[in-house]
């Protein structure tokens, strides 16, 4: 396999990784919560300090305000 063949292979694998990441990200958001876990609560102070605004529990915070 020539050097450029390897480069094309590597870039296609990276693009594949990116697609897998985006698809799984969207699917993770879409799948409904399992039956018994709707009311799971994160301990209050931890939720505010973590900046990951896209995490499911932040959505609950914002809806409350």
């Amino acid at each position, binding site marked *: 396999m020539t050097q450029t063949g390897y480069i094309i292979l590597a*870039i296609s694998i990276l*693009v594949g990784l*990116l697609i897998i990441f*985006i698809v799984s990200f969207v699917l993770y958001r879409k799948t409904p919560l399992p039956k018994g876990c709707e009311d799971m609560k994160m301990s209050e102070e931890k939720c505010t300090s973590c900046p990951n605004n896209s995490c499911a529990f932040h959505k609950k915070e914002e809806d409350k305000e």
Partner: protein
Amino acid sequence: MDKKHLIITSITLGVIAASSALLIGVTNLITKDKISQNEKEKIVSGIKAIFGNESKIKEESPINESIFAGEYKYINYVYTISDNSDVLIGYAFKTSGSNNFGKITMLVGYTSTKIYKSVYMISDEQTFASTLEDEYVTKITDNPDYQDVDVHCGATYGATLVKEMIDEVKGAVNK
């Protein structure tokens, strides 16, 4: 998800990915030769540290094309060193090996009269790199009888790896 929305999202993400790939490619073109130049400078400064300031590389070649060709586990490059008036003063072997704590790349210097001169550490990404550096490497630089420096020094695996490399170079020189 309706079709149109899906297409828009994939196009924007495609544009972002393409522009980021372009940015990285451009920076790579700028920095590629500078990085290899840095590596070259590191080797030159290593040789100067071993053979003194006025030494310079006369010629360099992969091990198997040089006069020391043979079956080696660690050595991959050899530099013949001469001083300003082109008199051969010694050889520097670039060796690299790894154990379960990380990789070591270093230069081993031998004088033209086949005596061990010194060692220079190019890159040591071992977990216990600092202990290896203080306890073992400083003791064997510019110390002809490196054999009797004890290997049990808080970084035993690293020290045995360094010693194996020097012994292999010794074998190559005495061939």
